[in-house]
């Protein structure tokens, strides 16, 4: 909760807001009342309409206009058109939407875009480009770490984090732990582990 508080959104306010938005158009009064109830010094209530949020995505400042209920994942995919991170389970169970938030891996489907205000987001696209691959991306290509490719962007980000954290001594067990929250249906796991360890060695 501490991070949410810092951004001025409470889980409670968000849930109330979202529920009301779904039920009727008359949402302003209860939210205002809620704000009062929380006290003038309490958390800032956002929405339910679109609000502005400025975040740094892959090194570039981006100002978005999104509804507070919009997840970071949704915002990255549209309007930002960074479609690497994938929506699969939409509830933090599969890891296909993994991105780095201030350098830490998160499931972007469980982070609100407004929560990322002022923070640094790195997606798979930000790690490397086709012309200039990140060591992990190159190793995924070399060791066939992708099959259908749908889980791949999340796997790549999770492995890049593991490589950054453990350096060239990254063990297979550490790579396994780093990707334990990333599901793959094609069965790339053995090759993903190989790729992560190889990328770490490459430095």
């Amino acid at each position, binding site marked *: 909760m501490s991070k949410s508080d810092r951004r001025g959104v409470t889980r409670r306010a968000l849930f109330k807001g979202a529920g009301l*938005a*779904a*039920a009727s158009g008359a949402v302003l009064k209860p939210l205002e009342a809620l704000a009062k109830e929380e006290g003038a010094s309490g958390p800032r209530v956002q929405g339910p309409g679109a609000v502005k949020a400025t975040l740094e995505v892959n090194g570039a400042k981006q100002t978005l206009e999104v509804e507070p*209920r919009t997840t970071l994942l*949704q915002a990255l*995919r*549209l309007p930002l*058109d*960074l*479609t*690497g*991170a*994938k*929506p*699969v*389970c*939409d*509830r933090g*169970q*599969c890891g*296909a939407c993994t991105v780095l938030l201030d350098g830490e891996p998160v499931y972007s489907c469980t982070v609100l875009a407004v929560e990322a205000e002022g923070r640094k987001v790195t*997606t*798979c*696209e930000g*790690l*490397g*480009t*086709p012309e200039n*691959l990140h060591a*992990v*991306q190159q190793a995924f*290509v*070399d060791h*066939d*770490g*992708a*099959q*259908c*490719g*749908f*889980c*791949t*962007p999340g796997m*790549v980000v999770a492995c890049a984090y593991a490589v950054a954290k453990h350096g060239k001594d990254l063990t297979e067990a550490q790579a*396994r*732990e780093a990707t*334990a*929250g*990333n*599901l*793959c*249906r*094609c*069965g*790339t*796991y*053995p*090759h*993903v*582990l190989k790729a992560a360890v190889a990328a770490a060695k490459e430095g």
Partner: protein
Amino acid sequence: MARKVTYLAGIEGAERELTVEVHDLDADPWPLGAKLKYVGTEVPRLDGVAKVTGVAQFTQDVNLDKMAYAGEVIAPHAHAVVKSIDASAARAMPGVLAVRTSEGKRVTYAGSSVAAVCATSREVLADALAAIRVEYDVQPHAVTVEEALKDEVRVSPRRSNDTAGGRGGAMRRGNPDAALESAEVKVEAEYRTAIQTHSALEPHGSVVSIDKEGNATVWASTQATSGFAGGRLLRALELPRGRVRVITEHMGGGFGAKFGAQSWDVLCAEFAKETGRPVKYLLTRRSEHLVGGNRPDSIQKLTLGGTKDGTFTVLAGETWGTSGNGRGGAGCANFMGYTLPSVRMLQHTVSTFTARGAAFRAPRHPQGFFALEGAIDAFAAKAGLDPLAVRMKNDPHPVRQIQWKIGAERIGWKRNHRKVAGSDKGPVKRGVGCAAGRWSQAGRGNWSVDLTIDSSGHVIVMNGAQDLGTGTRTLLAICVAEELGIPPATIDVRVGDTRYPPGPGSGGSTTAPSLGPAAREAGLRAREALAALLGVEWKTDSEKVTLEDGVFKGPGGKKATFQEACGLIPDEGLRVRGTRRRNYDGYNRETAGCQFAEVAVDTETGVITVERVVAVHDAGRLVNTMASRSQVNGGVIQGISFALYEERQLDENLGDMVNPTFDTYKIMGMADCPQIDVVLTTVVSGFNSIGMMGLGEPATVPTAGAIASAVYNAIGVQVRQLPMTPARVLAALEGRQQ
């Protein structure tokens, strides 16, 4: 028109000379031991870079100007009549473009659509769907085989449908009654497998866009671009095939459940027509589990009989499974692979109020081989024989005979197989086991691959078939590369688009052997075209121009690199087509495979840990050994997941699925993934000019059987129900199994 070719085919150690009649235009088949530069090597997939950088565009990633979003309200009841629907609030919402309701509809499975909305944004769509109120008149239902069998007429949408292995009718051969009577060793047991959902990470769905001239472009997550651009979709769009383009640039997994356009794609097309906007609809994860297809479950009662020396004489049995409210499809391949002189098998597909099953990687096989291999283990134990020796004794396949030996060596059968099952001391017990697999797919269809080259040497290879992640793009490049003598990575392959020559639907491991030979021929035709240009340039007969090690050579020491030869191509470029013709008479119709597993079972908690799997497989001549290994890894991993974790749980009272999420419907994760040793045996199949066979399905056939066999060896008692959850392991240990 035809010529005879005699060449060596099969596998080293069991090779055989084949004489085949090939079409004049066909390339000479490559014999066993042919020296090939690119075919049979490790080639990184051509689209790897696009996939690791997030550039690869899946249907889920398509965003178009003014694109609208479709979604559905789904029924939470297995059997009900829709009494009333109040969609007035949804219709009144700004941004809602269209609403459909199905008052009076009889719902026959949970997850069935009862109302649909098209809206300008995801947010409006979510609000509108949530604002639709539906009242149901709930009817009696049966959602499981056992419930349905109790009172079939009242609670099943259809009468049960008897099938043998999915083909219809009962299976009978030899003299099963007499053989059962005279069997010296006879075992009888019941095996069960659960319903497995496909759980592809990209859901089903499409994006439909109709341009101002009335041509439609459809991005679809499909295993069959050509098939998708067919009947149902065309009827919905009211357009001829030639005005509908289907694109599947990349697709996030299918495993058998994604062929033609389905109701949600039709909805998407109709909304696109109605609203004049592009419309996107991909299923939610919940719907994906509910209606996205599944592998039918099974109850298999088997009796296996034979002689004391371990020779099988008879298999008899009866099976039941449900494929939802569809007909057929719940058969089990439990009488295949081994020599079984007498068979009597009756298989029932039981109709229930659940969504339809679908083909799932090696339909009928993983469940069938789990039961058959279990019966074989029980038979070997009763006869006092080594279970591997019994398998080999009854195995007619020359390739699998070699594979059993390779696998046994790799797993350390002699050392690791417990002579007395369950004899390890302490609570954690180890064991090894094995199982066979089979498949049969040498490709089919007269598919064509187009190839263009320009004067800069840029080669483009085209076919409409989709790459499911199996590596079709790369495979086509390799087959062409071999004929042109240039590296596969330099070839540009375009697939997944109905603008290219039509390709096969990717089902039954058919794509690689169906397209590989066509690609090889396209490469050959291009080489001939270049040789003709060089012939003119060198003033010689083009047949005297040869290609060796990537260099064209002609009489009098003439030489030209591929690049130089391409320089002779006119500005307009050069276009050729390679076509696949009929299959030849091959070496063996059956693809062989076997797997060995080593497991540790904690007898206090019931937790099974798969420590190692050795997977020995044949897929004819392998084109890309790297992608082949990935395929086998995938088959093994899905097989372990099927054996240990996956089970669609239905609430019998509500008839709805209680675990339609990835934290409640478990698929295998990284933490559970064992060491997998993949051994690929090259077998020149003889059926086509390359000698290829398919590999996708066979790799998952033996896995569950091998693991169950290893568990039996570890704990001394069979766990006869999948998934082998800790509770079922403990029940088996305590003798509480059904």
